[in-house]
């Protein structure tokens, strides 16, 4: 009756398929009003005056909040807007159409200021300052170093110096941001499209100075997030404040174009570096800086740079390192976590370096990795991270075999004869997942079924199914007798939410330990009832020839025959764990247009215990396409004034079914468990980490075949124009 390891279809699907899904825009409350925001057309401007008089008198308009309204409506802090789309006023109206009419009638007097768009230029003296109070655009800098990088560089056979970058991407969850808030005089109830209900709760309570106990945050169905719903946005707080001020429920739903202005952007990291390696292809030293294009507010820019800096060595033996993490303010929307959050960038950077060594030494790319990999974990990465477990060298060999990498290389060679241009790229990755605490409560019901409440906040990953599998196995009962609930701050007191590939590991471990603790509690009651030491199996306690089911014990507690806790809560602190593996991408290139299409993604991942292969594979599919798409399709373009030239899906390309590859994931047959009770390591981000690095190499490989010479790709995305020029020459 074991459930773990089986490809069970999700328990979360029914309501999504049968018209009962409830995303935040589906929520209608009596008397509800609609909120919207007036947003700056300038990337950098002083806000001289906001005139809401005409808007305020329009039919259907209930209120307009401007910078004069005071906290938390302190729009345009410091009297200026710092990115195009930053809010300057908020309108609340009786319906959506009246709202959009009124948003057009709020007049703002701007004094445009010079904008700084490029993070490298933003670091130069004399650049316009995003935040004058800092006196610089460098918001944070920290050094991560080990060994003696200068000596290692000096003693290297070969040196390379270059700049690698990952362009900004828009996370593009299919459901835009949105929130509904209502205040009934006692409780501030917030329905929020978020990854972190408990964090929203804390932030709202703090910002509005209300007790935590008076705030309830419900995460309804959330239509994707990919990191973009981690930040608690000012809009979420302001909608809650408006609901309190107006004593009416208030809803704000971003349009897609508005979402492109509101959301945190992903990637946006640059590595400027110098590296040294031997003629045998061994990397000796890396000295450089990871620069985050943090945007107008450094919400996550530094964290991302620092993750990318500390993960830069990957699982390679190089110990002489000197890497600065730098976050730089620019007149753009704030940077934030996006599926992988620093690890896809670190992996792309270090794998670009491995590929460069291969090209410079003439060694096979797999051989270069073989010569550089740490054989196995546990391993202390020189920049302070402890890799828990894994066989990196053997994993490379198994990964290359499982993905049929060399068969694909031969296929690409053979395709030349048919007039087709294919390219193949591989990457080896290691990434960090899981952090922080997580909370679970398991409750025994009168009929011996169990309710599990968790603080993680999944929104499509299928963690509720995974946790039901884990808990059902722990309690030795059919999965039908376990119900998992989440996404409501009333059902568990705290939790970190869903991000960082941590939910099944941290949330699942909390649930397993809570179930164990509850069983101990019930066992004590059973022993008292049965009059002797009791054993448990499959929902029944036995002592000698007497037995009692869980349901009977719960009944006995309610009848006062015995005392026992019927609920157990576990607060689990989860240390990081490190999945690793190999990703291989095959692309086909049309040399006449420069357009490349992904054909195939194959992977080999050691993600620890695979609780549900169907769902884990689903994560590989979607995650791989996001990494591939970062390289091939998705481009954020700003003009020199910081105006977004790709402001919605008409200009920003999210791939369609015809533009997606086939996926063939393989999981390690003998996985290396994490030391968490679940043994899992996390899978949500691994494919994104692996696929971007493999895709850019596959493109390089295809361009080499088309052009008849080696090229070096240094940034993502790689546009068809760039590919065309690399093949055909010309400026």
């Amino acid at each position: 009756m074991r459930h773990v390891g089986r490809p069970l279809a999700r328990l979360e699907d029914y309501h999504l398929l049968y018209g009962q899904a409830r995303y935040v825009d589906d929520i209608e409350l009596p008397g509800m009003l609609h909120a919207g925001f007036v947003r700056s057309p300038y990337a950098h401007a002083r806000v001289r005056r906001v005139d809401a008089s005409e808007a305020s008198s329009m039919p259907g308009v209930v209120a307009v909040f401007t910078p004069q309204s005071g906290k938390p409506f302190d729009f345009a802090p410091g009297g200026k807007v710092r990115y195009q789309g930053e809010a300057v006023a908020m309108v609340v109206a009786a319906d959506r159409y009246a709202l959009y009419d009124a948003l057009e009638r709020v007049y703002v007097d701007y004094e445009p200021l010079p904008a700084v768009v490029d993070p490298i230029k933003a670091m130069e003296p004399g650049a316009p300052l995003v935040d004058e109070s800092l006196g610089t655009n460098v918001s944070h800098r920290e050094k991560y170093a080990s060994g003696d990088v200068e000596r290692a560089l000096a003693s290297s056979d070969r040196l390379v110096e270059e700049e690698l970058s990952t362009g900004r991407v828009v996370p593009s969850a299919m459901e835009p941001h949105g929130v509904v808030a209502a205040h009934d005089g006692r409780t501030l109830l917030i329905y929020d499209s978020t990854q972190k209900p408990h964090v929203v709760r804390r932030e709202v309570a703090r910002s509005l100075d209300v007790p935590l106990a008076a705030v309830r945050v419900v995460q309804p169905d959330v239509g994707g997030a990919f990191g973009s719903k981690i930040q608690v946005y000012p809009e979420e707080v302001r909608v809650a404040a408006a609901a309190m001020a107006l004593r009416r429920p208030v809803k704000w739903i971003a349009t897609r174009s508005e979402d492109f202005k509101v959301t945190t952007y992903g990637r946006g990291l640059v590595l400027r570096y110098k590296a040294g390696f031997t003629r045998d292809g061994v990397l000796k030293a890396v000295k450089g800086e990871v620069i985050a294009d943090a945007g107008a507010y450094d919400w996550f820019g530094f964290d991302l740079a620092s993750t990318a800096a500390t993960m830069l060595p990957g699982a390679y033996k190089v110990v002489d390192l000197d890497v600065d993490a730098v976050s730089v303010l620019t007149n753009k929307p704030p940077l934030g976590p996006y599926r992988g959050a620093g690890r896809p960038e670190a992996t792309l950077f270090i794998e670009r370096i491995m590929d460069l060594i291969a090209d410079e030494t003439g060694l096979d790319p797999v051989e270069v990795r073989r010569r550089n990999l740490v054989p196995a974990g546990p391993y202390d990465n020189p920049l302070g991270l402890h890799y828990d477990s894994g066989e990196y060298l053997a994993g490379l060999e198994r990964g290359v075999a499982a993905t049929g990498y060399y068969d694909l290389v031969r296929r690409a060679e053979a395709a030349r004869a048919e007039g087709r241009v294919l390219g193949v790229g591989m990457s080896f990755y290691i990434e960090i997942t899981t952090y922080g605490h997580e909370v679970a409560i398991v409750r025994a019901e009168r009929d011996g079924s169990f309710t599990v409440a968790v603080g993680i906040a999944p929104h499509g990953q299928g963690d509720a199914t995974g946790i039901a599998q884990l808990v059902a196995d722990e309690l030795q009962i059919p999965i039908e007798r376990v119900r998992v609930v989440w996404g409501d701050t009333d059902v568990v007191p705290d939790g970190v939410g869903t991000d960082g590939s941590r939910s099944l590991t941290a949330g699942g471990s909390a649930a397993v330990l809570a179930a164990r603790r509850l069983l101990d509690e019930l066992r004590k009651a059973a022993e008292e009832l049965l009059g002797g030491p009791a054993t448990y199996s499959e929902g029944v306690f036995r002592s000698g020839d007497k037995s009692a089911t869980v349901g009977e014990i719960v009944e006995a507690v309610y009848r006062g025959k015995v005392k026992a806790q019927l609920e157990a809560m576990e607060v689990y602190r989860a240390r990081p764990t490190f999945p690793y593996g190999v990703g291989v991408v095959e692309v086909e290139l049309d040399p006449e247009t420069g357009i490349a299409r992904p054909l195939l993604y194959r992977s080999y991942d050691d993600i620890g215990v695979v609780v549900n292969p169907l769902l884990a594979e689903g994560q590989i599919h979607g995650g791989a396409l996001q990494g591939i798409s970062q390289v091939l399709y998705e481009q954020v373009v700003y003009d020199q004034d910081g105006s977004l030239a790709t402001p919605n899906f008409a200009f920003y390309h999210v791939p369609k079914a015809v533009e997606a590859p086939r996926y063939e994931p393989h999981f390690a047959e003998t996985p290396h468990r994490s030391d968490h009770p679940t043994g899992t390591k996390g899978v949500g981000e691994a494919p994104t980490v692996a696929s971007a690095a493999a895709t850019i190499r596959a493109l390089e490989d295809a361009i080499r075949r088309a052009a008849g010479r080696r090229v070096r790709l240094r940034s993502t995305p790689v546009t068809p124009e760039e590919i065309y020029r690399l093949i055909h020459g010309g400026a």
Partner: protein
Amino acid sequence: MRIKVKVNGVWYERDVEPRRLLVHFLRDDLGIKSVRVGCDTGHCGACTVLLDGRPVKSCNLLAVQVDGSEIITADHSDDLMERLKRAFHERHALQCGYCTSGMLMASYALLRERPRPTEEEIREGISGVLCRCTGYQNIVEAVRSAGP
């Protein structure tokens, strides 16, 4: 303007502003929330419905344009729709679920037209709907397996 529309087999008669989008009419006036809004440029397809048998993006039409027409949404139930929903469930063809109604409608329209589509035809057929979670493969397989 007063319009009369048959939605999932039921006739509705309503007064609507001429500028009202069909998607808002369906969601806000009729309460059919399975029709979703994912963009404002007609690119995401989350709002796809069948209008007199053809898949359309309901954000690209005004409600007044469909006066007298018949609309089917993902709430419609028949043998084909049931097979599709079962296949989506079994093949893990949905994650966050936000595009799912649109995907179901595009697939339903495709399978009614071509009961045994090739993989390429399926990919073409659902390419009016964007999915950010699944990478599409499981949707393609679900549609293929939902045929007769």
